[in-house]
């Protein structure tokens, strides 16, 4: 059964490479946000599979922490864009008012 974990790890690593390629190539920022999110998900899976491969399933704690933490960054991105939009709109309005 060991080898199936190994093969899964390799497959996840290849998926990680694809996510990195998308993150590097872009072209829009949303591609990069998605790449980071996908990479985080793959890290959760990678750690889960590795912990079974090395025979220590108690390290699933870590995968759990990753899964919980992963989307906080995405929330921050959402908030960042939202406040930037409003700020730009307000600045444009002020420019027009002058």
């Amino acid at each position: 059964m060991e080898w199936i974990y190994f093969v899964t790890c390799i497959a996840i690593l290849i998926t990680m490479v694809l996510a990195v390629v998308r993150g590097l190539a872009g072209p829009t920022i949303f591609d990069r946000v998605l790449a980071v999110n996908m990479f985080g998900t793959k890290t959760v899976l990678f750690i889960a599979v590795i912990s079974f491969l090395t025979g220590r399933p108690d390290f699933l704690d870590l995968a759990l922490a990753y899964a919980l933490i992963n989307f906080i960054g995405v929330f921050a991105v959402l908030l960042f864009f939202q406040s930037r939009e409003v700020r730009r709109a307000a600045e444009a309005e002020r420019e027009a008012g002058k």
Partner: protein
Amino acid sequence: MMTIVFSLFLLTMLVIVAVAILRTENLFTAVMLSGIFSLIMAANFFVLDAADVALTEAVIGAGISTVLFLGALALTAEYDRSPPVGTWVPLLTSSALGGVIIFATFQAPRLGDPSAIVHQHVAPWYLEKTPELIDVPNVVTAVLASFRGYDTLGEVFVVFTACIGVMALLGRVRPRRDSIKEGEFKKATDNLRHHLIPRVVGKMLVPFIVLFGLYVQFHGDFGPGGGFQAGALVAAGVILYSLVEGGVRGRELVPEWFSSVLVALGAFTYTSVGVASMLMGGRFLDYSVLAHDPVHGQHLGILVIEAGVGMTVAGVMITIFHAFSRRGIR
């Protein structure tokens, strides 16, 4: 063999991403790529069996630092305008330095070599004596909290000092309100309350993140984790709440005075354990004298100092986040 394959794979990706971070001019892209960077790093730590470090990297690198970077980015321009400098001198310097380091690795022991110096020095003693002297399953916790308690005390004070430094830069500044009316701005941009799905999911997960943080705090003797990771996790829960509900409500949940007090209180707790052990006839941070049974004293000491570490780390993260979110209103 397996470790080497995975590590090579991950480290190659790490180098590529690091170069890309340096080359990009869009700072937002750099923030996103640095998120990927720390996830790769954390996976690599895990492959190398450093579960405690991987947990720290996951929480701080991938979670909180992205939030803080974006908070900083909201205060600055979006594009990097580096001053034009010659590229040849830095390139030559760093290539030479890299060459020296690579040359030095030929002398270094191989990965996982049991006869390496680092495995011959004090590590065998720690592994042999931990069950007898401290009796916790996670040797990392024993080394970090008891054998090397001085180092960890130093780390706590480093974090404490860093917080004071950041607050000296960011804190106590009235936000600029010349362009937008503050109430209007807060309503529109300070929170995600009118986005239904993020709001519901985010608020639902906050208690679980805090609960998991407490689990990591008190389970650190047995599994990966401890005060540093737990403090960061609890802070991540508070930060998530502040992102969803807005900075104002976040500051109502954990007021700024409270998080500042927490920073100092954690460092104070740690130090007072050391002083208490001195008063009870032992040496500074020698927990064995804290109870009748030396092993029980060690358990007690580790529990209290881990709580101190957790308080300081959580306080520092929350204080810095509040400082950013307060500055963000402008």
